[in-house]
């Protein structure tokens, strides 16, 4: 299956892209998927370690299982206001 990671905040600048696709073997946990992304993009690894992850309007946990093609928003530390 294919995961699509959306980049937000400083990840946009660090990655130079709005999103990235990652082919993975299903099922796997979000943590495992993030590990694979970090491996393929080591320059993002430090920030990925502090990201929240969302599917649509829902935050998901690293232990959750991904079973199908999914779009995942990567949300670095926030600073509103």
């Amino acid at each position, binding site marked *: 299956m294919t995961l699509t990671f*959306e980049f*937000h*905040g*400083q990840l*946009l*600048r660090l990655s130079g892209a709005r999103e990235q696709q990652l082919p993975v073997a299903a099922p796997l946990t979000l943590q495992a998927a993030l590990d694979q992304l970090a491996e393929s993009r080591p320059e993002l690894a*430090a920030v990925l*370690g*502090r*990201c*929240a*992850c*969302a599917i*649509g*309007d*829902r*935050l998901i*946990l*690293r*232990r959750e299982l991904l079973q199908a093609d999914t779009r995942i*928003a990567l*949300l*670095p*530390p*926030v*600073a*509103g*206001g």
Partner: protein
Amino acid sequence: MTSPDDPSRIQNQPLALEPLLAWHAFPDCGGLAMFAGTVRDHHDEKSVLSLTYTAYAPLAEKQIREIERAVSSKHGAPYVRVLHRVGPLSIGEVAICCVARAPHRAEAFAACKEAVDRVKHEVPIWKEEFYADGSSAFVEGCCIAPDIEAESPAGGRHEHEHHHHHAHG
């Protein structure tokens, strides 16, 4: 999300304060507290020319509404509303605006303050600063992953520490 009574909380146009005040409702509320956070012309020692805010809107819209409800209920403030601007902002422009109405002023102030604090620290919004020297930087922020310990090396900063990295109060 765009009705006058329930505006988008994330806005890419200048924030209109007047409709936010809800003057003609809540005759039982004698206290109205408002906060507006404006773009400052400096950050620590650096001269700031402009900012760009971005947001992950699907979650930000939901979370701001949840914060409004929670703060409203906690402080007995029937009306709590927070709007946050996104896009490029100049010095002096309003980045965030919060209005809280309550029977008395103590609750109105408390609700307004807490809603602003929570939106600044919990909602997926990012701030990139552009400096007079041509450089730019994302402002150091708060990790909002529910399953990452605040004690992690980078996420473990205390609020009062990274406070100073925010572009305004």
